[in-house]
């Protein structure tokens, strides 16, 4: 049970930590105040608690697939925010621009609300079993600790770079994280039977298991699946390409404006 808790919590925390760390690093590189990000984290936690509270009801929507569809919508929302964020910064519209702030805050609120709701719901499921609760809490604490530590390392790694390469690295990681959000949205749609499930294209579990720490890190970064389907691969690559096109077109329109 401890191991299961570690995996579940680590998976959720890493995902949110990745988004928060990248934006924190971006704010530091831009020499702006990080207060609005703290606000977004707190708002995300409140939204997560609210979502967790209504989750049993949400699950009953759409003939029992309400949770999957809501999660899909949240992931698509995060992807859209990250794409607009990339478009703005590639057009040289930076902080403290309100739209950039708004996109960053929305992405964080959405990411934290979904991930924290999953964790809260998972832990609350063991309320009646005191013995298991101890294992679950210990596992959750370990998962939380590893996830937050990875986020802190990512943040310091980014700010250790010079501003220009740091901004580039952040953009690349945002593209990868954004595409992973869409890949996860596809997984939810497959779970909800809104997308047809197909045979896995490959099986790399013997190389990197989904349940190992590297597997979890890769999952948070790029929605790593040892047995992905064609639809997941297709959506992942399309989202990645779309974000890259957004960056290139943003830069192009900036250069036209400068000319």
């Amino acid at each position, binding site marked *: 049970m401890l191991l299961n808790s570690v995996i579940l919590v680590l998976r959720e925390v890493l995902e949110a930590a990745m988004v928060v760390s990248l934006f924190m690093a971006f704010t530091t590189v831009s020499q702006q105040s990080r207060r609005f990000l703290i606000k977004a984290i707190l708002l995300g936690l409140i939204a997560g608690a609210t979502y967790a509270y209504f989750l049993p009801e949400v699950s009953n929507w759409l003939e029992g697939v309400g949770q999957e569809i809501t999660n899909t919508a949240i992931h698509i929302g995060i992807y859209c925010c990250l794409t607009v964020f990339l478009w703005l910064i590639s057009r040289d519209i930076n902080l403290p621009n309100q739209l950039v702030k708004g996109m960053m805050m929305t992405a964080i609120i959405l990411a934290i609300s979904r991930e924290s709701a999953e964790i809260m719901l998972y832990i609350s499921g063991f309320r009646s079993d005191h013995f298991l609760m101890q294992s679950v809490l210990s596992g959750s604490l370990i998962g939380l600790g590893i996830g937050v*530590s990875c986020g802190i390392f990512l943040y310091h790694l980014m700010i250790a770079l010079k501003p220009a390469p740091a901004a580039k690295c952040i953009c690349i990681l945002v593209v990868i994280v954004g595409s992973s959000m869409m890949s996860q949205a596809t997984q939810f749609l497959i779970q909800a039977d809104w997308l047809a499930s197909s045979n896995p294209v490959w099986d790399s579990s013997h190389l990197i298991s989904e349940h190992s720490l590297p597997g979890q890190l890769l999952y948070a970064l790029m929605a790593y699946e040892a047995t992905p389907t064609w639809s997941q691969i297709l959506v992942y690559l399309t989202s990645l390409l779309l974000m890259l096109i957004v960056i290139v077109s943003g830069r192009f329109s900036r250069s036209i404006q400068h000319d």
Partner: protein
Amino acid sequence: MKSIRLYLLLILVATLILVMFVSLLKGYQSSIETAQDLFDERLVNTAELIASANVAQTTSDSAQSPTSDYLFFQIWDAKGQLLTRSSTAPHIALSPFKKGFYDVNFNGFRWHNYVYPDPQLQRWIIVGERSDVRSSMAEDIVLATILPAFFGIVIAAILIWWLIGTGLKPLKNLSRQLASKQADDLKPIQLADLPIEMSQLVKIINQLFWRLDQSFQREQRFAADAAHELRTPISALQIHLHNLRQTYGDDSEDWQLMQASVDRMGHLVNQILMLYRTAPEQIAAKDESIDLYKITSDVIARDYQQFEKRQQHVELIGESAMMQGHVFALETLLQNLLNNASKYAPANGHILIQVHPTEKGVRLIVEDDGPGIPADQYERIFDRFYRYQNENSDLQLPGCGLGLAIVQHIIEMHHADIKLTNSAFESGLKVVIDFPAALNK
């Protein structure tokens, strides 16, 4: 990076958590495996024990009472007939008759079984334990070793916080010494037990202080030399000009302009020297107790001629007001303020000076009935060489734009506050200065 201490704490605790938790997970996995091996060994022992305790070769219908709810056993003869069983066990064989461990489902639970062939009595003993109970017991044992690690991390974080604070103490002492230094204190920094990492930094700072001190001394010498070298020829020029006018009896506009230019040059040199002398780096306010009212009255008396020349009415209101300050600097401040007031007030105009003791120190107010200054210019007029020229006035007043910059220096030196507003007259400027009673160095 806002705080080195916070940065180090975060990064060290994150490293500690990451390394410790990953090790804990690895330890947990291998401990669970070891515990499972131990439970398997216990299952084998139980099977052997049951075999030695049950030697009857006849079938018995009555099930034996179980040792516990999560354990069962069955004894089968070589022909596959059930000889006896625990009450928790069914009538069918729960595993194939082949030595080894098996996992099966029955009675709503997952069971881990061991099949033991009894070589002496040619029987099969099947012993099983509930898998969830085995896992719980294993986890219970392992958790007892994990839980102290959480408290360990909290204690480690507190210790790291304290140790970083101790490690950064020399840096704190250095910054405290630098912060407490007066503007004119350029003595080298002395810190005991300096760590190697900081000795180079302190050495460079001390070298910088030495160079700064040398440069100030050079500047002081230059100022003294310049005062001597520039004042003397300007005074000579003024005398020669006066003599020439006497000799030629010419009072044409050219002569007057030349006289005004030489006067302005003399004033400019004096003001530049004064600006330099009153700079906070050059002069520190002494803890000298003075009566600002008396100083003001002395300055007015000394400079009364300039007011009289323009038939201006000067009024001093107030009472004795004691404060700590630098007499020479305060006289210069008053001279500049009064000079400005006299310059901008019209002929027959009014200049009102008030000096009063206040709760926190002394308040000096100088106001005139001149044209005044718009509020948006209040900050700029303290800039060096900046002169405000009223757009509605054709009046070209002499001056070099250094008077209020000098005032600003003296204000800073005395840690005083200065405010500019409209005067109580129909028009004009009001300067309010609040001096603290004592100088907090």
